[in-house]
């Protein structure tokens, strides 16, 4: 899976904010606010990656059990999926 559009991110008011760029701005003309772990997962999704690989990367970076990591990743991906910005 991966993000459907090209996004760039930067910190704004202590949040990571993502906006679409190039012609993708015509398709997604909004913005996404990300917390710390969300920004981490979002950055991994810029390239094609499986849910299991994201969980593995998550565990390398965050102090979490595998179950917590799976839950966090799944919930975040579901949120992106509902917003229509992910290709599975």
């Amino acid at each position, binding site marked *: 899976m991966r993000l459907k559009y090209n996004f*760039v991110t930067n910190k704004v008011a202590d949040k990571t*904010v993502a906006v679409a760029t190039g012609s993708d701005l015509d398709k997604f003309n909004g913005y996404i606010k990300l917390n710390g772990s969300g920004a981490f997962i979002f950055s991994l999704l810029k390239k094609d990656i499986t849910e299991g690989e994201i969980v593995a990367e998550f565990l390398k970076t965050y102090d979490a059990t595998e179950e917590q990591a799976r839950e966090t990743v799944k919930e975040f991906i579901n949120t992106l999926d509902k917003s229509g910005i992910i290709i599975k």
Partner: protein
Amino acid sequence: MYKIADLNINFSKMSDYFGSLSNNYLTNDTAIDIMVSVSKSDILSERKNCSPEIPEQFVESSCALRAVAEKLPFFEGFLLHSAVLDADGTGIAFAAKSGTGKTTHLRLWKQLLGDSMTVVNGDKPFVRFIEGKPFAYGTPWNGKEHFGTNMKTEIKHICFINRSEENLTEPLDEGEALDLIMNQIYFPRNPEAAVKTLELAGRFLKSCRLWRINCNMLPSAAECSYNKIFNSR
């Protein structure tokens, strides 16, 4: 050549209409900061965002604005959809969705303050950081009323306007203001410029005092917001 927001901008082959909007911005400078050329295909593309009855010269002007806005982040700037006024050297931006009443609130402030207030830009100011401080500029693109002045003012307050029966002005924190300002800023297509715009947006929020103005259309609305903003140091 025109000097807009302290940038020398060369617009090639624009209509007389654009010339009439930009008269106050002519310069004899020759060094070019930004080159703008609006093609037929740009106009066709821009038309997709406009009502079909809008004359071509308006669409051309809109294309020119977009072309400049795409380049502004490379000059520490961005386009902020807002009305900006200068009250005795203090710059105040009123931001709101179109049709909410920022121009009405601006008029009420003008009634209240008279000559001690100048409208810098009624609709599309450029904001640039100069020596670390955010300045808003008059531009030829200043709304259908053409409220604006070729000047700059340091923005010290950003006010987000809501229409309401009761007048209430209250401070906002950066987190609340983030959601309100994102829809008012033009985001360029160029990825590097978009990243820079996000950085500038963050600096802008940190540099200014942030307010929510709930207001009606009566003169007391301006008194309420003015007193809160200028008496809450």
